[in-house]
């Protein structure tokens, strides 16, 4: 017990020093280059961020951006799982859908954003882009997870006449869960990146992307950095919340290992 406390403390100090190190690197870069427009100082960025916190539009933009990213993510998760299940049940369907996924994965996201600008209203473009970018990742991982289900366990369950619902719950879902979790964590980061990129180009009324765009127009690097910081923090926050939820679901399973 005592050991783990000192270990935690050590870890804490280590993290803090890593953080300070990179802030110092940032500040030195700022001092060497000497112009705010190229690299603003971390302190002015923090001050800017603090100012933003008191502007109502900041919160509105953050909330709407969160909404878009979340809807896009949820759509990709739901459809990704459904399509993955169908693909695992039917090999022809799997082979049919695979090239589509490969194409989505290797097409530049900007091409999709531009075509989406033609198809959808500005507020829906980021949702569509989030969905489109995350969908193949969820699909690939869930398919992989289903393929990795241990045939020997299934055989055992069949011999012991275990009910189908229990086979689904205790074998399929349990096997796929790690693959699904990994996919979700990748998607959480990606959704923010592509979502905000789509917002920059489609500039919907309330969005983080629109603020990034106007920061670019006014050459306000400090604000650009501040908004970027917001995106990073939101992405991290999402990951932490998601990890907590997953931990809760699988808590029983891993608490003793």
């Amino acid at each position, binding site marked *: 017990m005592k050991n783990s406390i000192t270990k935690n403390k050590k870890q804490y100090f280590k993290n803090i020093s890593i953080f300070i190190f990179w802030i110092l690197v940032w500040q030195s870069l700022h001092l060497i280059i000497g112009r705010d427009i190229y690299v603003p100082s971390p302190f002015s960025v923090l001050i800017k961020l603090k100012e933003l916190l008191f502007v109502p539009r900041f919160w509105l933009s953050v909330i709407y951006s969160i909404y878009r990213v979340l809807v896009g993510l949820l759509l990709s998760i739901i459809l990704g799982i459904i399509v993955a299940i169908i693909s695992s049940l039917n090999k022809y369907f799997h082979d049919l859908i695979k090239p589509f996924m490969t194409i989505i994965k290797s097409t530049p996201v900007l091409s999709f954003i531009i075509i989406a600008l033609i198809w959808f209203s500005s507020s829906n473009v980021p949702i569509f882009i989030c969905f489109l970018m995350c969908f193949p990742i969820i699909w690939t991982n869930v398919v992989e997870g289903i393929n990795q289900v241990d045939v*020997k*366990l299934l*055989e*055992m*369950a*069949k*011999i*012991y*006449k*275990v*009910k189908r619902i*229990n086979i689904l719950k*205790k*074998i399929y879902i*349990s096997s796929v869960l790690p693959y699904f979790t990994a996919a979700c964590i990748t998607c959480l980061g990606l959704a923010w990146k592509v979502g905000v990129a789509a917002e920059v180009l489609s500039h919907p009324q309330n969005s983080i992307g629109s603020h990034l765009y106007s920061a670019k127009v006014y050459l306000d690097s400090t604000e650009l950095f501040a908004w970027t910081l917001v995106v990073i923090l939101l992405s991290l926050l999402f990951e932490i919340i998601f990890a907590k939820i997953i931990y809760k679901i699988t808590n029983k*399973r891993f608490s*003793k*290992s």
Partner: protein
Amino acid sequence: MNIEVKNISKSYDDLKVIIDFNMCFSSNRIHCFFGPSGCGKTTLANILTGVISADSGHVIGKNNKKISYIFQEDRLLPWATVKENILFVLDSFHNKSEAQLLADKYLSMVDLLKFKNHYPHQLSGGMKQRVSIARAFAYGGEILVMDEPFKGLHLGLKKNLMDYIIDNWNHESSFLFFITHDIDEAIYMADDIYIFNGPPLKLKRRVTIDTSREDRRNNKKLETYKKIILEDN
């Protein structure tokens, strides 16, 4: 009561594992399938129990008997505790409280009640195999199949596990099929040893072991049987 296979054949791709095979097994005996790896003994057991179906022929007397199976590997759910693993096969046949009682009963039979909340990866190989034995007994199949369940376990533990099974199976299942290519295991456990070779599967000889369990435990007369079987191989 007997289980009988009549004119069964089975092939995998081009490999004919069993051709027009006939055999009859009576209940309340430990039938041991003895032979080299790949001779088709597992296939025969799987057809007998309906795990796989034969290409042609019939199995008579199996009806809808429940089957307990102890595999070569433990085949436990890695994400479920020892007790959850046993409950997993009981849920379809028992209500919750019954299943709990059964699971506890058979876990204490294999001396693992203390470990009921552990996960398989926290147990040794022998302990995992004991869980798998407890699962088979808790399920209470009328046919018990054991497919080389002691492979890779050391002698002391093997004997221990065999004793667990011999002491408990009688009241639980009417048929016990034990597949092995370890002669000592075969002589220690079996009532009838069927010496096979193949593929295609052929019965070379049937040896009936008349020594009492007690004598076997004290290592008496086993050498004589060993000689008989080895002569044949």
